[in-house]
């Protein structure tokens, strides 16, 4: 098959109100990539988690910034880059606790990155606080 790549970009104001719009965008790309409904739903969740983290942590819930969701689809992968220019965030210790322990401590956070890692095949960051932060997530189209 010839190599091809398609690229899609959504820029939205940094309000959690726009997460539903982001999910619609991701779900339609997931379907376009050929994922079944369940898998597309999981990918949508991973991107939602990443964008919610950006809005709440990188931007401190300020609604005046921009969140960029860039999707690239080729023969092999569906790739999402979530881009912001906020404070950046790094997975903290809380992320390593198991869910039972989080419940015991009455913690409601610490699940987003865990979900992203469980769903995506590859996850990495490039963080330059205040300039540009990029979360890079890859989902393989096929498991070989």
């Amino acid at each position, binding site marked *: 098959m010839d190599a091809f790549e398609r690229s899609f970009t959504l820029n939205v104001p940094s309000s959690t109100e726009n997460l539903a719009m982001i*999910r619609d965008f991701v779900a339609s790309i997931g379907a376009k990539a050929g994922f079944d409904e369940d898998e597309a739903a*999981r990918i949508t969740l991973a991107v939602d*988690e990443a964008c919610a983290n950006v809005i709440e942590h990188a931007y401190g819930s300020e609604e005046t910034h921009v969140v960029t969701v860039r999707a690239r689809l080729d023969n092999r992968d569906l790739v999402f880059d979530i881009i912001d220019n906020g404070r950046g965030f790094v997975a903290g210790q809380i992320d390593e606790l198991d*869910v039972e322990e989080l419940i015991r401590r009455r*913690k*409601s956070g610490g699940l987003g990155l865990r979900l992203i890692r469980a769903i995506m095949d590859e996850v990495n960051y490039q963080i330059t606080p205040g300039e540009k932060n990029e979360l890079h997530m890859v989902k393989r189209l096929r498991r070989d």
Partner: protein
Amino acid sequence: MPQSFQVDISETEGVRILAVQGYLDAHTAPSFESSIEAEIRSGKVRLVVDCAGLTYISSAGLGVFMSFLEDAREQGGDIKLAAITPKVFQIFDVLGFPKLFDIASTVEEAAARFAQARES
């Protein structure tokens, strides 16, 4: 325009039923958190969350269940989940929630488990 999220609360035989409609994400979770918190603060700790109308949940929504479960159980109650659709269940499952929460197929079954626990 349809509401993105709504909770309707009713009571049957001392069990509070919270019927959720719509999606629970970082935008709507605070509203659900207020509802659960109000129940628990007023001593209503036998809660069933009817998830039949729940179309989507992210970690923000899951976090609400997590942060109040111990409070409810310590006061002799529980937060039981009922009628979760397969699409939403798979998200609970990724994080191992079925082992940590009491999940029933129907609201009636979840409510009955409170009665059984009281009798035993």
